């Protein structure tokens, strides 16, 4: 654990930057503006065509994966400090980073298999 701490911190930091720069606009459009009808949602054919481009796939992998690692790192310490669960250190770390890895694997699989 000690040896990969710098790597985990780097993923936390990169994910925090990706989430800060890109999540507000995506969340505003996908979660609020499209469903509420403020702006018309993009058509399936258009998004699917975007998805076939390698740059879009790489973008989506970064957009999903790095913020999950950001969550894993930050939420781990929230649990330790906020809920005083210091004695469950190993279990919490495995669950948090494991969930981020699982999400990354699912995104990679979907991006790989989509035609």
């Amino acid at each position, binding site marked *: 654990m000690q040896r990969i701490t710098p790597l985990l911190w780097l993923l936390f930091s990169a994910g925090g930057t990706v989430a800060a720069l890109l999540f507000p606009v*995506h*969340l505003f459009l996908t*979660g*609020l503006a499209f*469903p509420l009808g403020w702006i018309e949602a993009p058509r*399936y054919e258009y998004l699917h065509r975007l998805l076939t481009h390698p740059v879009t796939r790489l973008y989506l992998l970064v957009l999903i994966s790095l913020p999950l690692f950001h*969550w894993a790192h*930050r939420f781990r310490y929230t649990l330790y400090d906020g809920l005083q669960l210091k004695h469950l250190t190993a279990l919490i770390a495995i669950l948090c980073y494991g969930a981020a890895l699982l999400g990354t694997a699912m995104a990679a699989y*979907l991006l790989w298999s989509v035609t």
Partner: protein
Amino acid sequence: MNADPHYTLYHPRWYRRRVSVWWWLQNRSYTVFVLREITSVFVAFFALVSLWQLRALAQGPEAYALLLARLGRPIFLVLDAVAFAFVVFHAITWFNLTPKAMVLRFRGKRVPDGVILGLNYAAWLVLSAAVAFVLLRG
């Protein structure tokens, strides 16, 4: 040696005050700190929504139409509105921390905090406009 320590007279007991789980509500800066930490939950929430959207797009037009209908349900609208507030809070606190976390030098002089902040917010604006442009073209 006495094998049973329980009989020691006047053995000191550690004095440890129990700290409430709600310790962070007693002071405004602690509250801001914990709210900032909680933003990570909403970051993860939206990463999962994006994963869900990706799956729908991979499955086909019917799955995408179903996803759009589900995102229009009140429960998702409320969750997304709350998540949006927390994600914006994350972005602002994250940008404001950058000059403290990363000291840049240019020609031997430290780049002023205001310049780094300005670059962050400019990048935020430009990238948001670019994402909106690409998504709204369809």
